[in-house]
């Protein structure tokens, strides 16, 4: 399984990521997920979220999750970008793509990765007031 992990303060460039996609002739399904910063946290309007990462451990934990994903599903590639630092409202903090032969495993693997990431990858949010 091919994996690509980016943790960066740069804005996520969806088009560039889509253009760099490589998939072999046996692959039939691509699922992408974008997590976008919403305009409120609880009852409070916010302008942005400041994401802090313990980056070496975040990378290590993502790699462990990729390995587990690769053992559970016949996925050809996983690419994940987590933006850190200040991410303004309406911009994506997370972009994730799973390429697989068929739809069910693509959806399952994508959701697994997000669920597990939210338990294990050391990244934290600080909402910045509007």
């Amino acid at each position, binding site marked *: 399984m091919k994996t690509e992990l980016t943790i960066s303060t740069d804005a996520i460039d969806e088009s560039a990521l889509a253009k760099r996609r490589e998939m072999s002739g046996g692959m039939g399904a691509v699922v992408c997920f974008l997590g976008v910063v919403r305009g409120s946290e609880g009852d409070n309007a916010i302008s942005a979220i400041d994401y802090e990462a*313990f980056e070496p451990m975040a990378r290590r934990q993502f790699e462990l999750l990729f390995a587990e994903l690769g053992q559970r599903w016949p996925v050809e590639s996983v690419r994940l970008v*987590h933006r850190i630092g200040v991410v303004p409202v309406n911009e994506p903090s997370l972009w994730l793509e799973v390429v697989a032969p068929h739809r069910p495993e693509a959806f399952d693997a994508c959701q697994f990765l*997000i669920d597990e990431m939210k338990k294990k990858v*050391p990244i934290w949010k600080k909402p910045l007031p509007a």
Partner: protein
Amino acid sequence: MLLKVSVKFWSYLADHAGCKKAEIEIVNGATLAKLHEAVCEQFPKLAGSKNSTLKAVGLEYEDDDFVLSDGDEVSFFPPVQGG
């Protein structure tokens, strides 16, 4: 004999501790649980979130019964919130 370990605090635990990193001396054979208690004595504001605090040694999560070695780089942090 004493071990020297470093402890890094992340997210709001750094605010509660008032610092991002501490060097701690602890008895040989001490576990991560023992270290956690010692740290909460030294930084009392960390005690309130003790039960929700996650602990890692190096880049791996470790349990309370993990036995520390000299030079271990320990991290304490709140529940993660990526995505």
